[in-house]
């Protein structure tokens, strides 16, 4: 009895880790499209099944797992690029072009599965994956297979995640990276400063797609199979995780966004773990996920409201401390000072 409860506690802590580390990449991808480029990119839901299916088939064919990983990254990148081309050159709104790419990739995943005889699986014991080469080694070194597996997910997944996060942090701090961020936030200002807005959008969405592709490939290598329905609800996973992370880190800078994506991903899968305790047969899980997203968004509003209040208070205090550096006029004060100018000011803004 005591033994079983201690293993279930252990399970509770270990079980969400693989998903947390793998989907952190997807969340970073969603962060790039949703927060940096300001589009809701639904193609995520198509990249995941296509890359899981392709990865499973490739590994089954005896292709190296890291080659499969690179091919998946390329699939994601190509999807992101095509998606952005639809938006930039065919003027299809980003939401719609994302749906188009989602449908196309989903369709392709079915094609690949049917060409492969309706399945996309590989035997984990017979083939090396990104994770089990280390897991096997750890087992040989004397670790129980339980710990060996989880450690391999944490170490390999964590290393890939850390590498990518640092690379992104560096890239988005360079001149080009900063231009991408600028183009996503203010097109007029960017164009006025010579930034190629279309090109930046294409680069940004391609990077986002590549990250999601890597997540999909790792997901298949963790599961030992790929399936056409793997992508269902993935955008909800991505957004929920991102918003959860932003509750803690806010949206102030790119670095905080990266941290929010990673921490948010782990938080999300721990919450799912709790929900699974309530909903033991799993029928309600997807429904709970939708409610969770609403709750997280509402919490986000609440946090924003409170921080704005605190900041206002701080600003007022700073103003009074520094003296009247910048006089803030209330509308009534402005009216008293110069009636016609105030009326005019309002007029001008409208014109």
């Amino acid at each position, binding site marked *: 009895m005591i033994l079983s409860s201690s293993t279930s506690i252990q399970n509770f802590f270990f079980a969400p880790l693989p998903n947390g580390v793998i989907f952190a990449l997807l969340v970073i991808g969603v962060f790039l499209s949703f927060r940096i480029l300001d589009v809701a990119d639904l193609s995520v839901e198509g990249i995941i099944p296509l890359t899981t299916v392709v990865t499973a088939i490739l590994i089954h064919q005896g292709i190296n797992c890291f080659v499969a990983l690179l091919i998946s990254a390329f699939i994601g990148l190509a999807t992101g690029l095509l998606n952005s081309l639809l938006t930039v050159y065919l003027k299809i709104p980003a939401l719609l072009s994302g749906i188009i790419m989602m449908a196309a990739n989903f369709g392709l995943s079915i094609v690949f599965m049917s060409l492969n005889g309706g399945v996309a699986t590989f035997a984990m014991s017979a083939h090396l994956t990104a994770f089990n080469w280390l897991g096997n080694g750890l087992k040989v070194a004397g670790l129980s297979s339980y710990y060996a597996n989880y450690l391999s997910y944490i170490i390999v997944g964590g290393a890939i995640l850390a590498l990518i996060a640092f690379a992104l942090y560096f890239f988005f701090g360079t*001149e080009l*990276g900063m231009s991408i961020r600028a183009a996503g936030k203010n097109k007029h200002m960017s164009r006025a400063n*010579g930034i190629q807005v279309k090109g930046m959008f294409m680069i940004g969405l391609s990077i986002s797609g590549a990250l999601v592709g890597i997540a999909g490939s790792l997901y298949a290598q963790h599961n030992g199979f790929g399936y056409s329905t793997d992508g269902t609800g993935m955008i909800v996973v991505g957004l929920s995780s991102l918003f959860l992370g932003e509750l803690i880190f806010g949206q102030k800078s790119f670095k905080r966004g990266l941290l929010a994506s990673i921490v948010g991903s782990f938080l999300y899968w721990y919450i799912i773990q709790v929900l699974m305790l309530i909903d033991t047969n799993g029928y309600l899980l997807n429904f709970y996920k939708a409610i969770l997203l609403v709750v997280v968004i509402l919490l986000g509003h609440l946090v924003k409201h409170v921080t704005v209040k605190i900041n206002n208070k701080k600003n007022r205090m700073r103003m009074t401390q520094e003296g009247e550096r910048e006089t803030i006029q209330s509308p009534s004060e402005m009216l008293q000072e110069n009636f016609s100018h105030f009326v005019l000011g309002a007029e001008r803004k409208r014109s």
Partner: protein
Amino acid sequence: MEKEKILELYDIHKTFSMDTNPLNDKKALRGVSLTIYEGDFVSVIGSNGSGKSTLLNCIAGRFPIEEGSIILNGRELRKDSEEKRAKYIARVFQDPLEGTIASMSLFENLSIASRRGERQSPLRWALSKKKEVAFAELLKSLNLGLENRLNSPMGTFSGGQRQSITLLMATLKKPELLLLDEHTAALDPKTARTVMELTNQMVREHNIPTLMITHNMKDAIAYGNRLIMMNEGKIIFEAEGEEKKNLKVQDLIDKFNALGEGTLSDSQILAN
């Protein structure tokens, strides 16, 4: 002695098509020709819909033109994109929110503007200590106490501060032409005066050829060496030098009224 020509506009036409029916087309510019010489600071006035904003946007490349040519220092710009023209042309918009990026820091905004129109390297770090020192020095010269707030997000600054910063951004890399699109119109009167003074100081100090749209006729007379009045897509009146200095607001209002009923809105009369 002949002054050097900076910007030459020849017979510019611009039509906005609302739908497929050509009868519903709006002719915004009907043959505008203008030459701006070295050291010129031109203020442009005109009622709403006179085409002054369209003219600025056509020069900047936001709108393509159907006819005419735009020549800046001997280069034909007509076919160039807005991004390409940014290399030579700097702009300040009417809306303080438009000219800067609210969610990025003051430092990042300045850094973007300092490389206006240049190639963006994917390897070079955008922010450096050297830049920070240089920017802080420049901000100090604005006298707005901004030099210690380089890392604050742009959104935390007031409209006046943002317009002053945008002006600084426009001159970080000296442009061949500066376009100001009613850049003080969204500010309260006191701040508008300060920003206008700053504008004048910067334009004179760096000797930048400037085209400034304004609703404020007083400003149009007080600042710059030339004045242009537009109506229905054409330049209808020009004054420069002594003639411009001696203009009175009432003269301009009379000219507007002579054009017929309703071309001058009440707000513009109220402004002066």
